């Protein structure tokens, strides 16, 4: 079983390398995508910085804390795009009939979707995310003990898994309804807009909405909140907030199960 596991990773890595080379073929596109990823992320930074400077006292968070929040979210997003970004456009692949073909191959369909193409935008996202993240940590007055570092790492992984979980869940619907693409777009917008603010500036009810209905809070707000000592004012019991990475993992597993269930009921593109 260990061998089949390593084998699977080897195959996945091979395909990824091929996909990457395939992206290089479309020369202009490749460079534009990286550049664009960088520009996009830089602009989000500008945007956040602007609002930060204009509006003081964001729910009791200092600017360095908000910076860590924004950076964490950005890093998680970059990692998600590289790991699972193709799930976002699943509706398009369904339309093309790719899924029907994937069902005939001896590889899990979800993995094939992940490997459909190399998500070049992710490179730009990641570059800026890492840069900002490094900057945020440098500027943070926190004492970075090993346990804090470990928790932050867990938080980043958890955040990535959570973003993946949300889009995987929506794409489970994409297997049956092409219009679910609009939901993916919308969620992406909402999480980009609201994921970069400490949710404590919103009324409690709204914060709850963004924690339990659309679990944006778990991506960066809760873990970073716990790290920066806002544990009490996060709007959820401290145990859950601290356990955000675990909640994220659970949601990820849940979303994958949901996706498999949806796939079992897949009826294919029209005959």
């Amino acid at each position, binding site marked *: 079983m260990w061998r089949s596991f390593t084998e699977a990773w080897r195959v996945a890595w091979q395909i990824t390398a091929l996909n990457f080379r395939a992206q290089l073929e*479309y020369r*202009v*596109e490749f460079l*534009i*995508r990286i550049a*664009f990823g960088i*520009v*996009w992320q830089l*602009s989000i930074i*500008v*945007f956040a910085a*602007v*609002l930060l400077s*204009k*509006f*003081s*006292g*964001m*729910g009791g968070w200092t600017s360095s804390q908000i910076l860590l929040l924004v950076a964490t979210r950005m890093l998680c997003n970059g990692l998600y795009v590289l790991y699972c970004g193709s799930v976002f456009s699943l*509706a*398009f692949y369904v*339309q*093309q009939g790719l899924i029907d073909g994937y069902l005939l191959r001896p590889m899990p369909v979800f993995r094939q979707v992940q490997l459909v193409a190399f998500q070049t*935008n992710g490179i730009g996202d990641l570059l800026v995310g890492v840069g900002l993240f490094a900057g945020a940590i440098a500027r943070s007055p926190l004492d970075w003990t090993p346990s804090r570092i470990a928790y932050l790492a867990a938080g980043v992984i958890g955040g990535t898994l959570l973003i993946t979980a949300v889009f995987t869940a929506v794409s489970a619907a994409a297997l049956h309804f*092409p*219009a679910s*693409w*609009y*939901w993916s*777009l*919308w969620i992406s917008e*909402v999480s980009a*807009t*609201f994921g970069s*603010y400490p949710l404590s*500036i*919103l*009324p409690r009810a*709204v914060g709850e*909405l*963004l924690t339990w209905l659309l679990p944006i809070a778990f991506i960066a707000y809760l873990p970073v909140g716990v790290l920066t000592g806002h544990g009490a004012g996060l709007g959820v019991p401290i145990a859950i907030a601290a356990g955000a990475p675990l909640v994220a993992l659970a949601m990820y597993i849940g979303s994958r199960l949901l996706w498999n269930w949806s796939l079992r009921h897949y009826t294919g593109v029209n005959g």
Partner: protein
Amino acid sequence: MIEPNPRQPLALRAAWITPLGELLAPPRIAATAIRMVIQIFLVVYLWHGLYSHTSTNSGLDRGQAVTFAVLAVLITRIRGLDRFAGRDTVFQHLAYGTIVYWFLRPLAPRRYYVLRALGDQAYGFAWVVVGYAACLASGVIEPPASGTAAAACAASLLLGQAVLYELTLLTDLMCFWTMHNDSAVQMIQFAQNLLSGAYAPLWYFPAWFITMSSFLPFQSTLNTPLSLYIGRIPVRQAPGDLLFQTAWVVALALISRLLWGRASRRVAVQGG
């Protein structure tokens, strides 16, 4: 061969295609309504939250900021109705090869594109009107700063839509050269979102940013009309801004006109 009958409502029929597709799917209508309501809800609370400690910021008070933000959400309804689910975007037509039929009909592809875009925008506008009425009635947003402000806003909005139409057209035309135009689309979308003021009114940004974006067409699609509405831009300044918008419309229209010709020729030379 049949001679064209001038009394056929071709324009209406073609324009009505996307709305008809939407109306035939009640779940989609419901989903659109839900997303719109939730977004307005979130946005209202966000700006209330941001303004909890200040009364005025960058020349905007809370009421104005909230109005701006909510109207921004509504107006993004008119943003090119996404035809993706209907396999009806230019990109998809090129991907599936069904674009050939655009060039086989006695209706110029360019004219067909315009009719479809008009239909989509008219449909989106219906949503805007409904949403606006509801928000105004419930007191979520403020009425316009004055009658002339409202008129100026309307004119500016019309021009802004024309600008946006041209920008969308340009990214669609790009498909004819490279099927991998997602980056260009994303770039324009992103520039559009950021520089139009959809995320936040441009007034909060540093002076250099505002100056920079004043040279670009994006702010004319949202920031200008809405700022006129809430009175952030005084009405006496309106004619200048409107003229600027018009200039952009003309410039972009010329470019897209040129590219349509090139695109058709490219199909002729290289195939779909």
